[in-house]
């Protein structure tokens, strides 16, 4: 058992599950999407990304890429949220909520790809 793989597997799956938790619910209903969950998703995704730094394998490079995509989407979602609440003060209207949630949905897709790659790598490993 490789502790590095365990740790990375843990974080990437956790990122996916948390993201799913944030994503489910009505797309434009702010009550269904809590800010704490988004925070947790961002932190866990950050950790998962950093864990892939300096990985020389082809798989490592692709996983780093998917994690970076997820991060980009999540940062965009957080930025939209901050701008809506703090800067323009229009609040979480259905339009804003929908765009935040769909951005996180995109990030979730990237997380799914990461997990699928992880599973493929595990299956390919014959030891």
């Amino acid at each position, binding site marked *: 058992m490789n502790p590095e793989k365990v740790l990375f597997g843990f974080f990437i799956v956790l990122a996916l599950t948390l993201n799913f938790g944030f994503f489910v619910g009505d797309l434009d209903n702010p009550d269904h999407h809590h800010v704490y969950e988004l*925070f947790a998703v961002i932190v866990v995704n950050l950790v998962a990304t950093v864990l892939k*730094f*300096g990985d020389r394998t082809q798989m490592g490079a692709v996983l780093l890429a998917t994690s970076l995509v997820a991060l980009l989407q999540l940062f965009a979602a957080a930025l939209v949220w901050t701008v809506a609440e703090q800067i323009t003060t229009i609040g979480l209207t259905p339009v804003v909520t929908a765009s935040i949630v769909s951005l996180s949905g995109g990030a979730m897709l990237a997380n799914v790809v990461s997990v699928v790659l992880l599973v493929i790598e595990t299956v390919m490993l014959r030891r």
Partner: protein
Amino acid sequence: MQNIIFLIFRRMRAPLLALILTYAIAVLGLVLIPGQDADGNPWRMDFFHAFYFVSFMASTIGFGEIPFEFTNAQRLWVTFSIFFTVVVWLYSIGTLLTLFQDPTFQRALTERRFTGQIKRIREKFYLICGYGETGSALIQALTDRDQHAVAIDILQDRVNLLKLENLRQYVPALCADARMPIHLMEAGLKHALCSGVVALTDSNDANLKVAITAKLLHPDIKVICRADSHDIEANMASFGTDYIIDPFDTFAVHLATALQAPCLNLLQEWLTGREESELRDPIYPPSDGLWVICGFGRFGKAVYDQLRKEGLELVIVEAEPEKTGLPKEHCVAGRGTEAETLQEADIQRAVGLIAGTDHDANNLSIIMTARKLNPDLFVIMRQNRQDNDAIIEALHADMVMHPSAIVANRIRVLLGTPMLHEFLQLVLYQDDEWACELVSRIAALVTSHAPDIWEVELSEETTHAICQSVLEGKAVRLRDVVTDPRNRSKLLQCIPLMMLRNNERVLLPEMDEMLHQNDRILFCGSHSAANRMEWTLQNEHALSYILTGEARPQGLLWRWLKRKERA
């Protein structure tokens, strides 16, 4: 080197993870702990403000409690989090900065940048290994002729020196061991435009390694090597190194030429001199009488062999004869710096002295002592280090043998003006009178400085006007090219030295020689002559003036008027 970059990124993991986790904990705490706004209403900090607060708290900037004053519960949390966030911040940033300054990482980055520069080269270039005295002289000479070079040296100091040098072309340089094939490849050994490799390091082994690497990885390029021992020379020649330059043998041959044919020697020297160097007078080494050679090392042996062929009487003075071995002839043990040894070697009767040890101070001392005993000696001094230039000049030796300068000069001629190299080879078969006549012709052309040497290839690109005229069937003779385009009754201050046509070489071609396309001609002459010749070669009007003697109307209108006039 790719490994280093991955390694650095891998080492960045721990500090980055620590940073993310501490920030997350501090932010989360601030968001969860209830606070109050200015009017005492319950208020929760949001993620935006929490992140903002933690960012300036951790970096110890500290803008104060925002947006509202904190409650005691919040202050308790902030008290804790100050300690762990600040410590982790310092640790992480410190570690990251150290990682970026890591010498191996920096080196990897430099090498990457260098490789990128080499890949972007779009012109022919020479790869020069070793930027010592020889290398710097060579690079200076090449860039002066608008040729490109890439340098490798094992010492960072020398690479830095190159960057300070004021060269006409940018010369990418890398501090690396040229013995490693990987570094030669980084420096463009396999680049399609790499047209030659020059190995000039102080170590014979390194030069050998460079030569064999170059011959294996890029077989069809020129490989030029410096070698100080016959062993290594034979080794290099065995796998087809194109030119092997031994400074000692080169000088010995030079000396032999000077003994037999002083004009020939002078001609060689004038033509191969740097453009700004002053022309020296001919030297006449005494060709009969006794010669004393001090030092029987590589240089001593090379000179000994040549002088023996000339049938001169020789005496060797050597301090460690058991190490160097001694010839059959008369020899004296000793350094030659003391009067007794020199007297034993019959210095009063001698006509020439060669101070050829590998120690400059000893050589100087030998010459000073010997001159006291016999002021009329012809003195040859071996110079080992360039920084001794000033004292050696003050000595006024008749000839100075400076290995670096000799090698640099040979390679400069080889790479800069390959036709001149061929010319000098052919000249060796001519007699001294022929050379004397040519020397006096050259002396009439130029003032006190060495003449310019230039090659003209009659191709469409470099000589548009000539090629057009030849294609039109007009007869263009060599005389036309050397005519002054400003006044056709005068000739330019230059001499055509050699003409090359279909692998046939003609020394000093006749002025009535007809020119054909793809002929190559080597000229020597004044700098202004080279510039003016360019006019004749490229400008149709200048050429037609020379050929016909009349200035053709250049514009459409004038041409039309002229035609009317004729009609």
